[in-house]
């Protein structure tokens, strides 16, 4: 009996592995074969596919120490920089490597100059928020302080030195524009009987101007008329089926997601009160 189980397990494992291999081969990740070390040391290749370095004293299949790994990474980067003297880093890394007020930069940390890239001044973000706040319009997309309105940058001594979160004002603008685009798609569908699949020319905005009275902040809640707990999307689909006599959208339908995005964007700043009646 036990033998059968382990056989079955082995079979299952083999299946999973082969599936994983298949997935890998389908994805066609880049392969960077490095020439083997003459000394039998572990070889590491940089993502440029050309630059290689070995880790002295560590053989293939062994585990380098943290210090050894950091050392080989540093050597690889130095080599890359030597080969690419004109290359520049993203704004993000410049911000991450920016010097704190009063700190002196060790010479090895001075990044190579980046032609054509203006370092991101954090005050700029605050200006941007002001502009976005003034030009915002109801119903057209994001409301005040929505994706278009960037948060003010913190003033004074600010934690730094890591790449996560070290993005520029330009990055934030791109993200805000992408988010607003999604919300605007929802706005268009919300105001278009055909797009929502209405069979009687009724569109969402006819009862819900500016998505009013959709109260997304109250979901999930027990929807008495349905006799069960409903999410906002359940009610969107209920409206599509009943007042507009359309067909409900699948949960992963981009239209449903866009409608949700538009509705939520209109209620920014409203406290969440799930279950509220």
């Amino acid at each position: 009996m036990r033998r059968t189980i382990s056989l079955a397990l082995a079979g299952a494992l083999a299946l999973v592995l082969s599936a994983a291999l298949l997935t890998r081969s389908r994805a066609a990740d880049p392969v960077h074969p490095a020439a083997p070390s003459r000394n039998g040391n572990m070889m590491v290749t940089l993502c440029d596919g050309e630059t290689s370095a070995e880790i002295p004293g560590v053989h293939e299949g062994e585990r380098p120490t943290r210090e050894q790994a950091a050392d080989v990474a540093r050597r690889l980067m130095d080599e890359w920089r030597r080969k690419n003297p004109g290359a520049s880093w993203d704004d993000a890394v410049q911000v991450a490597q920016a010097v704190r007020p009063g700190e002196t930069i060790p010479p090895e940390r001075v990044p190579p100059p980046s032609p054509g890239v203006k370092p991101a001044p954090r005050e700029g973000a605050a200006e941007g928020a002001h502009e976005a706040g003034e030009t915002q319009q109801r119903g057209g997309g994001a409301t005040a302080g929505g994706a278009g309105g960037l948060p003010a940058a913190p003033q004074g001594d600010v934690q730094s030195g890591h790449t996560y979160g070290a993005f520029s004002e330009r990055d934030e603008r791109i993200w805000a524009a992408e988010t607003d685009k999604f919300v605007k798609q929802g706005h268009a569908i919300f105001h278009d009987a055909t797009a929502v699949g209405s069979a009687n020319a009724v569109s969402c905005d006819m009862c819900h101007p500016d998505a009013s009275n959709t109260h997304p902040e109250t979901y999930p809640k027990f929807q008495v008329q349905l006799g069960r707990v409903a999410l906002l999307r359940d009610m969107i689909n209920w409206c599509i089926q009943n007042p507009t006599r359309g067909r409900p959208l699948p949960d992963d339908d981009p239209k449903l997601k866009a409608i949700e995005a538009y509705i939520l964007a209109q209620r920014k700043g409203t406290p969440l009160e799930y279950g509220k009646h």
Partner: protein
Amino acid sequence: MSKRESIETRHYAERDAFFAGLRRLSRRSFLKVAGLSAGVAAAKSLFPPHGFQLVDVADAADRPFTFAYISDTHLYPRRVNDRFVRAILKAVDDVNNLDPQPDFVLFGGDLAQLGQKEELELGAQILKAVKAPIHMMVGEHDWFLDMGDHWRQLFGPEQYSFDHKGVHFVTIMSVQEKDFWTARGMTPMERMKTVAGLDNGVQSRFEVGDAGREWLKNDLAKVDKATPLVVFSHSPLYKYYRPWNFWTEDADEVQAILQPFQNVTVIHGHTHQLLTNRIGNIHFHGMLSTAWPWPYAPEGLPKLTIQMNRADPFDQFDGCGDGTVDVIESGLVNALYNLWDRNPVTVKASYVSSGTQDRPPQTKLGSY
């Protein structure tokens, strides 16, 4: 008479009673027949009964009296949408079943959804079933496809006045808009659909306009300031919420024309909700829609308004309805909101004047 009988059945029953009554006329039955004849005359036509009545019931000081309203039916062609057709038919049944019958029925505008001939004619056809005489008002949904051409053909001028039992009634066209379409090269239907969207920022704001206000001034010039005045307008003649055009841009100028009159009431459509306001001596009452209720705007709601409970989306008729307006001794009005599938709510002149007396029942389910 059973309320379940069709309009036609009741029409023919009344007609038979009328002719039977003529054959055996006593003093008592004469009065009865005279009343019925008014109903018969009204049922035949949209116009007020005149010569073919046995007696003239119009008496200059004969207050109080009642009129009813149906408003904001937003009809699409029947094959596109029968939901809104069902709703206007329900309202027509309501006003035809009023006993006693109202002196007349006001139609509050937005008969059509997109101003198309088929929509307007469908509405005209349905409203012919109303027994009482009808006074028509135009809404922006009737207007902006052909700038009112077909509506005027069907129903006559968009601004007019009449006197009834000592009250001067004025219907004004308050949903004019400054030209936003020519510069944008819009087709008539694009213009119509832009105006039809409540939260569409492209369109202009509603206004009575210079010509309309001039007409109003001239019309009121001959009216004594003590004569009660009732004004019908589609948009509220005040500034409630601009982004949704719950608004008349030149409301202040219009109010200035109305202020010299001692008792003024404005009955308006467009807002699809129980709505109450008073500015100086002018009382304002919003009308219900038969098609759908609108949420209260996020700001600007008049203090006097006691919100109607928010509507149950699972009930087509909830938050919709029609209503009656009782013109009382003073010439002011008590407005009854006949909310379908709910208890009716009356907003009395005494409440609007005082803000405290005869307060309508409190809201249980307010806006989110």
